[in-house]
């Protein structure tokens, strides 16, 4: 399979990327790692007339502490996040989840900004970012603006980004040694999650919980978070994990089974985050 013909533009700075987006309009797409975009172009589900390649934009590749937050450049590749000592020390949920994306070859190319912009409801890292209460920093013709991640994922492959904008940075709180858990249920190790749950103890004392593949976008498990805030037990709170979700039925699982997985994986992730149990391994994920 070969994508439909397009014009290719290589840029080396964010300003050049913004200028190229302005010049080429809505038919242009940003190419970072290409591991979400090129597959859908090969299937002709996306037929952009211009690709703006930002993979050479050095200023988008970093992981650093900035005040109370960790700032991560949108061009940071999954394997770089996985190996980042800053990320491992300051927000260990993220490098762990990065290590669970796809396979090594995919992680060598895929970028954090790319997976957020793509907005697939089954994505690992957007689920973790949602649990963390991340901020998405975008840049467009009128400069930079920050969007809370809770307002970023609008619908199936639809984000709050305006035309002409691209993601430049993701900001997350420094959770340090605070507990976290990520439980992902797949049929094969390198698959997308059938359902996944992320749980993380946040610096303000709350617990963030989010779910992958339980609706048209990655979702906050708001009822679980509220129950935990009221002091209810992990078992009781996790029973509410499927509330407010709209899971689909497909060849892998029907909606009822997905709801069961959401409750089970949320319970496991919360228990791992609280130090009650160890993380599930490939051998012990039977659900």
């Amino acid at each position, binding site marked *: *399979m*070969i*994508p*439909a*013909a*397009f*014009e*290719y533009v*290589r840029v080396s700075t964010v300003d050049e990327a913004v200028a190229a987006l302005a010049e080429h309009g809505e038919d242009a797409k940003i*190419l970072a790692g*290409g*591991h979400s975009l*090129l*597959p859908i172009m*090969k299937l002709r589900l996306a037929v952009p007339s211009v*690709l703006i*390649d930002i*993979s050479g934009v050095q200023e988008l590749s970093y992981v650093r502490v900035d005040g109370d937050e960790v700032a991560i450049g949108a061009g940071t590749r999954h*394997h770089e996040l996985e190996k980042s000592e800053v990320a491992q020390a300051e927000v260990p949920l993220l490098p762990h989840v990065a290590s669970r994306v*796809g*396979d*090594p*070859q*995919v992680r*060598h*190319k895929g970028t954090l900004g790319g997976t957020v912009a793509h907005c697939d409801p089954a994505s690992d890292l957007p689920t973790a970012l949602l649990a963390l209460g991340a901020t998405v920093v975008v840049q467009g013709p009128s400069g930079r603006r920050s969007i809370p991640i809770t307002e970023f994922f609008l619908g199936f492959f639809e984000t709050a980004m305006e035309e002409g904008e691209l993601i430049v940075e993701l900001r997350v709180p420094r959770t340090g040694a605070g507990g976290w858990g990520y439980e992902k249920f797949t049929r*094969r*190790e*390198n698959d997308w999650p059938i359902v996944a749950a992320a749980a993380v103890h946040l610096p303000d004392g709350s617990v963030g919980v989010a779910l992958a593949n339980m609706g048209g976008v990655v979702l906050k498990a708001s009822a679980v978070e509220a129950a935990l805030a009221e002091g209810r037990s992990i078992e009781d709170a996790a029973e509410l994990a499927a509330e407010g979700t709209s899971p689909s039925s497909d060849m892998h699982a029907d909606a009822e089974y997905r709801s069961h997985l959401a409750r089970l994986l949320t319970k496991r992730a919360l228990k791992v985050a609280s130090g009650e149990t160890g993380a599930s391994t*490939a051998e012990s994920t039977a659900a």
Partner: protein
Amino acid sequence: MQVSMTVNGQQRTDEVEPRTLLAHHLRDNLGLTATNIGCDSTSCGACTVMVDGLTVKSCTVLALQAEGSEVTTLEGLSTDGELHPVQAAFRSEHGLQCGFCTSGMVMAAVGVLADNPNPTDREVREGLEGNLCRCTGYHNIVQAVLKAAESGPAAGQVPSAKQEVTA
């Protein structure tokens, strides 16, 4: 558009359509047909090559994305007729059946050993999660990677990268 890259130590500059995939560029323009295209959808890993020392699936990379890079395919692993340690181990352990996945599997294995020179059986299996063997011949493949690891750090290196180190 013009694209330049170093492939197996040789500088190559060619004219390509922007939509040309790296796998097609290597096979059709450069005649390097060891790189197989299996699923064509980033799943099977048969098209795995190294770009700047990291494994990628060349069916999901544009040739233009490898501009200025150092690319290594299976053809570039052996030096002076001598098999790379991973190739030698795949032969001695019979780490293949039909052979279709082998070139990608060998490249992925070099990548696994570059990242982790002394992997456990489990770590080899996890490291090769992106490569499928449709004969299901995984047991001997894993044995071959473990055997290659015994030959030391050379098993995780590609010849052109070695040149860089000594230069």
